[in-house]
């Protein structure tokens, strides 16, 4: 985490039957955490508004990067994956000086994450890092 928000952000979270996501500010700093299995028919309908809200919170906060915690994310289907593409596109739409990087924290035990995050890093080489 390269910066922190001056005030603790309002709780931004979504929770569905099989997955949840939230912007949290815990002992390790600010992060966006995804948990569970994103495999519903059209998860972007839930996740895109969440990502938009998180982005609105972060884009004015002068952050250099934000951790995106996948360690408890068992799986994400391609429809859910689009929410992360959507997020990247929102960051790309910012003036360059206001952009922040997405630093994905993955789990070695969840092997699909390696290739999915590789692809995402190729989509936006300057904005996506894999921790």
């Amino acid at each position: 985490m390269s910066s922190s928000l001056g005030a603790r952000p309002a709780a931004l979270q979504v929770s569905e039957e099989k997955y949840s996501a939230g912007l949290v500010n815990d002992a390790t700093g600010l992060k966006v955490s995804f948990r569970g299995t994103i495999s519903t028919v059209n998860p972007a309908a839930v996740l895109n508004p969440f990502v938009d809200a998180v982005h609105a919170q972060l884009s004015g906060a002068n952050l250099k990067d934000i951790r995106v915690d996948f360690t408890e994310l068992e799986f994400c289907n391609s429809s859910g994956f689009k929410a992360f593409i959507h997020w990247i596109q929102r960051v790309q739409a910012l003036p360059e000086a206001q952009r922040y990087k997405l630093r994905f924290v993955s789990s070695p035990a969840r092997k699909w994450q390696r290739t999915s995050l590789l692809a995402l890093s190729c989509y936006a080489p300057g904005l996506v890092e894999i921790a």
Partner: protein
Amino acid sequence: MTTTSNPGGRPIYLMLRMKPPWVFVDEIRRFVESFCACACPGQQREAQVALAVHELMQNAIPQAGGEDVDLTLQVDPVANRIEVAVSNPCSDEQFHDLLARVARLNSEPDALRSYLRAMSEAPSAARGGLGLARVRFEAQLELSVLREGRRVTVLGRGPLDAPQLQAPGGTHV
């Protein structure tokens, strides 16, 4: 599931016929991952194959209209091949749409490039448009489409010992 040896590297074959509601796709993915870990130990392919099955099943279920969806998985250690096939009933329009989408993917020899193009082009708020490209790149399976009667089959074929994917510039993941 227990791990069993496969002396002689005989081909291993699995077929499931389902009328699954959407919620069972996660269970199928977990089963396939476990099955592949047993069928091809040491190849590190189970997560990729499970991802492919998940995506192909999620494409097939809505098209099947409540009828059977078949999953066939073949692992051939001697031939160094793995094949995933998912079939379902579909209309002429659905078949031709699927055929065109796979043909467009395959027209780009570089699977990563076609995946990145799909990321740019697929509408972010609507379902669809990314799964096949994801299977082709992430699962390292070449895709083809067959039709028999009113059923369509999407085939994914690839090597059992697929090379580790690399980012341009050489970073392993």
